[in-house]
């Protein structure tokens, strides 16, 4: 699926905050390579003495011909790479990247699917939703996202509680109908059909809970694709 890919230099062309702890880095690739919605890139930082640290980040931008990608990076406590990206990287910096990687957790733009994300797990799912919007096929996808509080929701300006399922687990916006609670079967049930693919992305605990929920609701187990985010800094 994925071809052999080599390291290339990407130039940071824009940085925008998503939340207090997440930023999106838009990068111009020196060797533009088409990606699929859901794939990721590896970012490698190298010190003058040759020491390097690399981490994987999902692409948030949809497949297009811009030759640019957007990576949304959450700053983790103790995160060697995420802290550097957040605190030190400015527009114009050149960063080494490699990708796109991953041929499993991808949506090709033609099959109906339910997307369930927890916290920063929304990132690859947002690439899918944006792709569906570009294709004019939002009818194919339903996105459900779970966050602790409104100020932790990535891409809030592109999400609409009337169109997407937005679950708050601790604090809701004023007047929000659904009380703060963990995601549950009732949140997903209206959107589940047996012919759906499911894409679940989030922490290990979230991914396990959500994927079992989908199976219990009737999604065939082999149609559930899961991407678990470990604490990779």
């Amino acid at each position, binding site marked *: *699926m*994925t*071809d*052999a*890919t*080599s*390291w290339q*230099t990407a130039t940071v062309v824009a940085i925008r905050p998503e939340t207090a702890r997440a930023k999106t880095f838009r990068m111009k690739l020196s060797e533009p390579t088409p990606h699929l919605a859901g794939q990721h890139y590896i970012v*490698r*930082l*190298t*010190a*003058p003495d*040759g*020491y*390097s*640290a*690399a*981490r*994987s980040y999902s692409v948030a931008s949809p497949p297009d011909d811009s030759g640019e990608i957007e990576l949304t990076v959450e700053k983790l406590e103790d995160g*060697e790479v995420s802290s*550097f990206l957040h605190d*030190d*990287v400015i527009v114009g*910096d*050149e*960063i*080494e990247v490699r990708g796109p*990687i*991953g*041929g*499993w*957790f991808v949506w090709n733009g033609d099959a109906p699917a339910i997307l369930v994300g927890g916290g920063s797990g929304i990132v690859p799912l947002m690439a899918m939703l944006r792709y569906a919007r570009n294709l004019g096929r939002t009818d194919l996808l339903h996105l459900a996202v779970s966050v602790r509080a409104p100020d932790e929701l990535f891409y809030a300006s592109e999400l609409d509680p009337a169109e997407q399922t937005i679950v708050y687990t601790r604090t809701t916006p004023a007047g929000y109908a659904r009380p703060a609670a963990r995601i549950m079967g009732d949140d997903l049930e209206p959107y589940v059909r047996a012919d759906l693919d499911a894409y679940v992305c989030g922490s*290990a605990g979230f991914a*396990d809970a959500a*994927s*079992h929920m989908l*199976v219990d609701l009737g999604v065939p*187990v*082999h149609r*559930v*694709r*899961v*991407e*678990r985010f*470990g*604490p*990779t*800094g």
Partner: protein
Amino acid sequence: MAKVTRGFLGRHTDRDPRLPPGQYDTGNRWPVLTAEVTPKLDLATWTFKVEGLVEQPTTWSWDEIHALPASDYEGDIHCVTTWSKLGVHFSGVSVDTLLAAARPLPTASYVLAFSHTGYTTNVLLSDVTMGKAWVVWDYEGKPLEPQHGGPARLLIPHLYFWKSAKFVAGLRLMDHDEHGFWERNGYHDRGDPWLEQRYQGD
């Protein structure tokens, strides 16, 4: 050669020599990366098979595999997503013991490990013999949790950890290489962390 990143110095003053290139020490944490729904497997019906190019295809039940001579691994594990976990302890049975019962044919040189979920991964037969691989069910003296591949997983610690198939159901010995789940999706056929064989082409 890697290009120096402006302003990056890194936190590598006390880098542990047990860490392969590009890896970091995840410490007490054990990140979970599984592409599928974590299965709930019943020990009463659980089996492990060695099949394919062997003289004696063999299936063990949970009790039968536990009756085999125990074998432990103490050392490090390395995930392709760049974390390593140092000084871990697993218990189970050596793959050598399982192969001794099934007796590989001279034509066998590749292995496809398969899981109860349908997950697969390919390795060289020589990468799972001579004390290099285990089927393990205990981690640090306790039953291996489902999120880490319990009730039993393959353990091939000298290769990246996706080769250590979770929920392992058996080994199929073959005379040719056949891509497993991640290998079909762009990951390396062998996966030696010291050579940074992460993706096809490395």
